[in-house]
Each structure stands twice: as structure tokens, then as C-alpha cells.
């Protein structure tokens, strides 16, 4: 039913897109006509000079996701430093302009017009409420953005460059992995605690799909992101005889659910996806109860032995010795790597305009991030670019608090899953 609504919005987006293309309109602030010739015979319009390419970050370093946000920003910056040290892209150095919206849609809405004319695209746009509020602007300005928000519901906008897989697929893969490990059987009952909103709703889509495939019953519990005590819900789930609990919640809620899971003697495995875990939880009273948590995420955990991940985290520890260590760092770096592929393809085609960059994205069928995330394919709009995840388990001794227990893998259920805007 939501799909139908979003289909309406997709039609609107398509209409707006075609009209902007027809009019060759360029945003709300300036009038250029399809770009100008820059150095090296490359067409440019926004954020690109003969010596620099400027990308934007709209992140959160003061709001609820400030730890993750700081990590993402640092990852983006590390990537830019590496690229610039290697001579840049298209003969130009990468510059990053950062704004902090504190996870508030209204602040982001004000800051966006100030940032927009200076940047070619967004290397990171954090937060689903922010993304929802800025979506009309991104379409209007023909802007390509890598969201730090992984809902498959936003893939109807071709200007959204998803880095890795989406929440629904993280859950599908996670459940498949746990079933392979013998922790779940067909016909079981599982609990799913989710935040009512884009993030939680999308995760629930994944567990519902998996449950359908395997005759599993889901005991759903809807929470708001500020409900910090989930003991009552977990108690109810114990009564329902759940064999496993799925979480798409905030890290604080994750801690509460795990503590209750242990205190009530339930001790079932708990599956969370990328945003459910923050290493800071290991410093809380709930630390002893976190061992049951499996995290399914499209990016390698901080402690991953993947050579590229090691390279990134080592550089991070040198550059920012006292900043928090979390999954944001590798994710931020990956966002940069994908942008690098896009920019190189656009340079190849001689078109570093916003429209050119978007076109270039559609030509990428196998972006290799050296295992930071699975190989990405951007050629089919509406479908997640990859379906593979890493599974990690909480480990107090590992840096970043997570240890990889399964290398990149894609379950058959994830292969057959149809995302809301997937065509064909």
C-alpha cells in the first residue's frame, strides 16, 4: 500500500525530472545553460573549477547521531586526502564542504540553499528525516547524493546513490545466516522491535518477507525512538515464545532489549542491523548482555581484517587518535570511493556537470570498493546496488566492538527479494 503511494511520488519525480531536462533548468539560484567548457575539454557547471571538485557533506556532529556522524565525516575526509595525494581526479583536487544539521530537518532545509551552489554533489547526506525534507530540492537541482540512510523506500529518486545494501536486505540476510547456523527453524515465532518510521519500517519489510518464505510468525512491537525501556516488550515476547528477536532500533534501545533478554532468562539470539549498535554501549551497564547480538551490515566492521579496511582504520587512528571508533569511518570512506568511480566515469565522458555525473552513475555496473562493501551495480534504477552483507558479533575485545563472523555473503532469499521500486 505504501508502494502505491510512493508510486505516485515516483510519477511526480519522473515528471519533474523530464521537465527539468527539457527546460535544462539549473536549480533555483543560477542560470547556466548545460555547463561550460573547463580544463581538459570537460563540461562543468556547479562546484567544479579547473583545479578543484567540491563535494558537500550534510552531516550530524551535534545531534543524536554525532558519534556516527563524526566517523562518517572523518571517513569522507580520509578518502579525499588519499585521492588528492594520488593526484586528484580528472586533474582536479577534491575539496569537501561540510555543514552540520544536528539531525534536524528544519536546519538542513535552511542550510541547503547556502551549500547547494558550491557543490557538484553530496558525498554524504545523513538522516532519513533530512533526506525526506530535501528530496524535492535534490530533484529540482539535479543533485546526486550518497545518503547515510539505507532505506529502500528512497530508491525511486535516481539522484540517490545508495552505498551498500538496504535495511530490508540486511535483515533478510541476517535471518538467513542465523537459520544456517541452526539458531532458527521454519515455523518458529520471532519478535521484531522497530521504530515507527522510515528506518524501522524498512527493516520490518525485510523480516516480513523472510517470514513469508519460511512460515515464520512475527511478533511485532512498534516503538518511538525515545522509548528507552523495552523490558515490557521483551517480557511479552518471552510469553509469545520467540526463538529470536530482530531489532531495528537506536543503540540505546538495543542495550535495553539485550539487558532484558538476559535478565528475564530468555537469552535468545538477537539480530540487529547497521544502526542498532554503537561501540559506546560497551561502556554501559548493559555491556555484559551484548554477547547475544549479531549485527548484519553492508560495510565491514571497524575491526575487519580486510586489507583495505585495515588501511582505512590505521589512517584514521593516526589522523584522529581521540575520536570514537565506529562503523562510520569505513562507510564514509566507501562513500568517497563510489564517488571516485562516478567522477572518473564522468570525466571519461567529458561531462562533469550535475547531469553528466548522474548519467555516469547509471553506467557503473560493478563498482569495486576492495571489499569494504560488496560489488555495487547502479545500472538498474530502483533496485539496491548490492545485496551482500557482513555479519558481525559483539566482542568487547575487538576495536569498534564488533568481530566479523561471516565474510560478505548474499542469501538466496535476498537474491529473490523484490525492493519496492525494483523494476522487472
Amino acid at each position, binding site marked *: 500500500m505504501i508502494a502505491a*503511494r510512493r508510486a505516485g511520488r515516483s510519477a511526480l519525480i519522473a515528471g519533474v525530472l523530464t521537465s527539468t531536462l527539457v527546460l535544462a533548468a539549473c536549480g533555483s539560484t543560477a542560470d547556466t545553460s548545460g555547463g561550460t567548457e573547463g580544463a581538459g575539454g570537460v563540461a562543468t557547471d556547479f562546484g567544479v573549477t579547473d583545479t578543484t571538485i567540491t563535494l558537500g557533506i550534510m552531516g550530524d556532529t551535534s545531534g543524536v547521531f554525532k558519534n556516527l556522524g563524526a566517523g562518517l565525516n572523518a571517513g569522507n575526509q580520509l578518502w579525499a586526502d588519499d585521492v588528492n595525494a594520488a593526484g586528484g581526479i580528472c586533474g582536479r583536487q577534491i575539496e569537501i564542504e561540510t555543514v552540520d544539521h544536528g539531525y534536524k530537518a528544519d536546519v538542513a*532545509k535552511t542550510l541547503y540553499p547556502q551549500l547547494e551552489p558550491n557543490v557538484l554533489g553530496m558525498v554524504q547526506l545523513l538522516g532519513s528525516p533530512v533526506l525526506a525534507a530535501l528530496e524535492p530540492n535534490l530533484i529540482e537541482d539535479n543533485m546526486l547524493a550518497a545518503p547515510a540512510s539505507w532505506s529502500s523506500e528512497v530508491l525511486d529518486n535516481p539522484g540517490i546513490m545508495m552505498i551498500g545494501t538496504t535495511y530490508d536486505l540486511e535483515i533478510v540476510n541476517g535471518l538467513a545466516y542465523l537459520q544456517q547456523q541452526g539458531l532458527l527453524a521454519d515455523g518458529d515465532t520471532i519478535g521484531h522491535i522497530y521504530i515507527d518510521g522510515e528506518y524501522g*519500517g524498512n527493516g520490518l519489510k525485510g523480516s516480513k518477507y523472510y517470514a513469508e518464505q519460511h512460515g515464520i510468525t512475527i511478533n511485532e512491537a512498534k516503538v518511538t525512538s525515545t522509548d528507552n525501556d523495552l523490558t515490557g516488550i521483551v517480557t511479552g515476547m518471552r510469553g509469545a515464545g520467540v526463538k529470536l528477536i530482530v531489532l531495528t532500533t537506536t543503540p540505546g534501545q538495543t542495550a535495553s532489549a539485550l539487558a532484558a533478554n538476559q535478565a528475564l532468562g530468555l537469552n535468545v539470539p538477537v539480530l540487529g542491523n547497521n544502526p542498532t549498535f554503537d561501540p559506546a554501549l560497551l561502556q554501559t551497564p548493559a555491556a555484559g548482555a551484548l554477547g547475544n547480538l549479531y549485527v548484519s551490515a553492508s560495510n565491514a566492521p571497524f575491526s575487519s581484517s580486510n586489507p583495505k579496511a585495515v588501511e582505512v582504520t590505521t589512517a584514521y587512528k593516526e589522523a584522529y587518535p581521540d575520536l570514537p571508533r565506529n562503523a562510520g569511518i569505513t562507510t564514509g570512506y566507501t562513500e568517497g570511493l563510489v564517488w571516485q568511480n562516478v567522477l572518473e566515469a564522468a570525466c571519461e565522458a567529458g561531462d562533469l556537470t550535475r547531469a553528466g555525473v548522474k548519467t555516469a552513475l547509471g553506467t557503473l555496473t560493478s563498482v569495486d570498493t576492495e571489499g569494504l562493501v560488496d560489488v555495487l551495480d547502479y545500472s538498474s534504477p530502483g533496485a539496491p546496488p548490492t545485496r551482500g552483507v557482513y555479519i558481525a558479533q559483539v566482542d568487547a575485545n575487538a576495536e569498534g566492538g564488533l568481530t566479523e563472523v561471516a565474510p560478505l555473503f548474499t542469501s538466496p532469499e535476498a537474491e529473490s527479494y523484490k525492493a519496492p521500486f525494483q523494476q522487472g
Partner: protein
Amino acid sequence: MSETMTPPAAPPQAPPAGAARPGRNWLKIVATAVLVVVLLLLPVLVGNSGVAYLKLAQYILIGVVGGIGLTLLVGQAGQLSLAHPFFLLVGAVGYAVLSGDPEESDDLVGLGLPPLVGVIGAVALCGLIGLAFAPVAGRLRGIYLGVASLSLVFLGLWLGQSLDMFSGGTSSGRNAPVFELFGFEFANSQPAPTIAGVAIQKQQRLWYLFLAFALGSYFLARGAVNSRIGRSWRAVRDNEAAATAMGVHVTRVKAGAFVISSAFAGLAGVMTALWLDLVKPDENEFTGTYSLTVAIAFLAIVIIGGLGSVPGAVIGAVLVFGLQQFFLLGSQQFGWFADAQFGGFSAVVVSAFVYGGAIVLVVLFEPGGMAAIGRRLLGRRRSPDVPATADGDRTTPREDR
């Protein structure tokens, strides 16, 4: 902007209304005119590159309209209400439902009425819901009413999440219908009219629309305050028994104040939807567009501005709604607080301190708020040919606190 020194309630031998009033402050009239001209020319002043500042100015106007509504209720009629964000939500959703495109999707209700009808309908709807709350408002006072009205915010959170055929749901929300007036769309168009070389596109058009809303609200509120309605509000606020003896129908006046305040909040809600291009209910009750945080922000506007003062609410809105984002824009443009990379004194933190500090200072040193300070400044600048009235130098609340 500051107070007109309106004469005290008319004594029997007062000149009939319409005769030239003594004490017209020409300086103030000129200043007001200049301010209005500046506001009208704002899109030209910020130019094509200053759209972010225009966006900020629009945002302040949302605070102005909502703040005026609340100051009438809290300051004039003496009823503490924390339900403002709820009426904002009703206004935003009402506008989206009344003017939404019926074809937009199968599971959203959209009646496809002209946007102007949608705005008026949404405002009227908020007034009606305010009226429905009146039986509660009529029976409770002070903090009890504040807590009771708080329940509406929670009700709004729940309704927004569960009635997604109207609200669009918390996941994706729904599009805010583009405002149009007699075929003129408040959206980007090619070609766009220009004023002094500045293209009048969507944001500039919205600015003028918001300015019209805000000026209309301002003068309506001033009119209400300086008329019989305002007097009955203040009578009820100051002493219900005395008001009853004077022939004021207390419950009716209380209900009326709630209706009017809710209607203002509804208009602010419509403006919020247009400003965000999105109608999306909150995911929780503490942070978001229609949350407790917003209820507190509106209360802060009213307290800083001075309870019951309409111009004070304008100043309060500039401080509370404008400061944080102004600091943020400044930190981008001029590199303020640049060393606050991760934590520390960032723009967000500084603005929170400033407006928290402003509330403390107002409560401690100037309970009349900005309005009283303005009155003091202007009281010294009265035209000399006007004899000062007995209470010419008062800084305590009189007509409009």
C-alpha cells in the same frame, strides 16, 4: 517595533473612535513603514546567492505567526497552553488533505480543492478543534491547563502515526500541495519575473506569501488586543469574578481565545508544510517539527517577547526561531565557531545558551520582556507636545502587556 501608547480604557468623555488620538508617535510610524519596505525588498537585498537567508527569514515568520497566536492565549487571556505543536500538525495535515492531489496515490486522501481554500479550511479546522478543547480549557487554570493541553501533543503524535491516509505516515510523509493564487504558482517557473535583477522564484514567492500571512496575523492580533475582545480577555485573565460582574461571559471568552489561538497555530502549520515542502508526522514526541521541543520554543518566544505583547512575539520569534540557524549559516559563511569540529562551542550550543540565557534574564530582571524594554525606550521619545498621561512611564503591563 514596539508599543503604541494606546490611551487607557475610554472614560465617558473620551472622543469618539476615529478622532485623532493624542500620542501618535510619528517616529514609530515612520520606523514601521521603513521596516515593511525593507521586508518587501528582502529578496532583492539578499540577492540570488542569499536564498538561505531568505529561507531563514521565512522560518522566522512561521515563529511569528505561531507566537502571536500563543501570546494572545497565554498573555492576554491568561491560559497556559502547550498544545501549539498539535495545532501546527493539524494545520499542515489539513492543508495537505484539503488541497492534495486526489490522483497522488491510492491510499492518501486528497480532496484537490484550490490551495487558498485549503489554507482557509485548515485554519478553520484548527479553530474548530480548539473549540472542541474549550470545555477543558474553560475548567482548568494555570499549570493544570498546561499539562492538560500537553496531552494534545501526544495525541497528535499517535494520530499522525496511525492515520497515515491523511498524514502520509512517519516513513515518507506526503507532499505539501504547491500553493497557487488565481493561477499563479508559488513554485519555480521559466521564465521568472525579476525585481531589480533578482529572479522571483519559488523561495522569493513563498517569502511574499509568508509576509502577507504574518502581516495579516499581526494586524488582526493588534486589532483584537486593542478592542473589546482584548479587554474581555484581560478582564478574564486578571479577575474572573470581576469580569463576570462587568458582564463578561467568562467561559465563552476563554473558549474564544482558544479558538483564535488555535487558528493562528493552524496557519503556522500550513506555513510549515509549505516551507518544508513536506508533511511528515514526527517519529517521537521529543524531537521533530510538531514535538514538545516546539511547544517549549513557542513558550520561549512568548516569555522573551513579553506576555501578551504582539510586537514582543515578533522579537521573540526572531531570537528563538532565527538565532540558531543564523549562527549556523554564519559559521558556514564566515567560519564562526570553526574550531568546534566535534562538540565544543558549536553554533547549535551557543544559540541554545543565548536563548536559554535570554529567558532567565527576562524572568529575573524584566518580567515584561522585550515589550517592556521597547516601551521604556519609546517612552523617553514621546513627542513633546503630548502631555504625558498619568501612567506614561509605566513599564508594568497595561493594555497589551
